[in-house]
């Protein structure tokens, strides 16, 4: 257990710290200015793409559940708990 902890600490020092430093150091290059509009709106649209995809899955699931498991659906059958009448 202690060995594992040591291993993780070592990994943190060897891998994560240099990566973080590299990442922080990036962007210091002189030259062209970044266009914040492009960066921010692109980030926004990337996130919206994912959000709407997930949203489609979630709302699709909700709509399917509503249609399939409504009691007026011809395929609806009593749940196992209804026999005992306690749930």
């Amino acid at each position, binding site marked *: 257990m202690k060995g594992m902890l040591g291993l993780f600490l070592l990994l943190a020092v060897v891998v994560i710290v240099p990566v973080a430093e590299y990442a922080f150091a990036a962007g210091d290059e002189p030259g062209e200015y970044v266009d*914040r509009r492009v*960066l*921010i*709106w692109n*980030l*926004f649209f990337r*996130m*919206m793409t994912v*959000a709407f995809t*997930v*949203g489609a899955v*979630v*709302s699709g*699931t*909700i709509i399917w*559940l*509503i249609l399939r*498991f*409504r*009691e007026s659906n011809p395929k*609806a*059958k*009593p*749940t196992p*708990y*209804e026999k005992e*009448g*306690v*749930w």
Partner: protein
Amino acid sequence: MVLELQKPRPIWQIMFSTHHTDVGLLYLISSLAFLFLGGTLALAIRAELFLPGAQIIADAMTFNRMFTVHGTTLIFLFIIPFASAVGNYFVPIMVRYKDMAYPKLNAIAFWMIPPAGALIWLGFADFTWYATPPYSIISAPGPAADMWIFGLKILGISSVLGAINFIVTILKCKHPDMSIGQVPLLAWSFLSSSLIILVAIPTFAAALLMLLTDRLGVSGFFNPALGGDPIAYAHLFWFTFHPEVYVLVIPAIGMMYEIIPRFSRKPIFSYGSGVFAFVLLSIVGFSSWAHHMYATGMSFTEKTVFMVGTLAAVPASAMHVFNFLATMWNGRIRFSTPMMWAVGGIALFFSAGAGGVVNSAMPLDFSTHDTYWVVGHFHLFVMGTIAFGSIGYLYYMFPYVTGRMYNEAMGKIHFILSFVGTVLVFFTQHVLGLYGMPRRIFDYPPIPEWIAMNQIASVGAMIIGVSMAVFLANMIHSSAKGTPTDTDDPFGLGGKYYYPFEARNPHH
């Protein structure tokens, strides 16, 4: 359990009672009264914003006062007291105790609400529900501002007293045969939200006192002219009120946990994950407060910490959604009015949550912060999730409270109109925010996109207004003249699924 509407009591017997159902009824009626008052202000605001220029509201000052009191009223005088109403009715029954742990304290906690509400409404302050310093210190006109501060102070004490009562009732007064692992999820939701209140509220209570002494000129905590820092107030405020968001939403989720299994005719998919998610949310909820303050000049590191803290709260909320959908799966669902509200609430909860995730991404704050995007986002929570869960639960408890059945058709019309209206208003407001319209503005330049979006939102608000009129008529008519119902199974689900018949109220 059944309120003796069929066998009327004089009103003072209810008013001076300390019994949990009576106090619950008082909470219920006052919270609904404030719902309609605050909602009226919302309609006036939306009507004013239908077109650029001043139409129905005389001036900017009146407008600023209206949105301040609108927000304060609906959060502190509708949502929180409504949750207390449900908790008062059901928590003692669910833990099988005769009353709340401290009945007199319970009544005192309720009776703090009317004076606080009077202070807020008679003062009609204009500094937003956030009481933004240093505006609130150096510019906001008194005595309105001071009355607001005292009103909020009283409400804070009231909710701390209520929270203590719920915690003691659930942990100490539950039936000895009952382990904490058998306490229903609705009671668990009150336990978690009460614990959040106890930790969070004192910070705001302190901030309010500091704000008051700053206004009196004897201190300068938040006044830069005296060496103070308004950002310190932002930290104190959001340290209370970001967790408070979870205080608002957790009981509503708990109410959905009651409704969804009943009408699906199945037990909840996973009780354990529900409890786990409540407890997790009430802890992680404290790690995200400064995501409201990205634009105040925070460092990159601070922003990163609070973004991670915000994202960490998402899995807990997502677990609830999974639990709801998995409960519905393989059920035989009856879509009575309460179930419609609960399922509509889940869908809007997801939308609000997705918007929240996008919000927490630091750079997007440059385009969304303090625009109508934020207004749309949090209204999807407070209206789409919390009010939907609460109103669904109100329909659900209606037969138990009045012994009569509400009008099912009117309930469904109420739901459909509210759902359409909510989507129209608040989804549109997200887009309006992306076009750059700031929050809290009385008037706006005639930019065609802004006008179009505002008009869609205003039409949506009027639809909600109509639905609420249907609601009010239904509640008043049905509680007086509705069909008397069988309280063992008012929804005709055919099971022994409800607690009240294990604990018939001996006091009535």
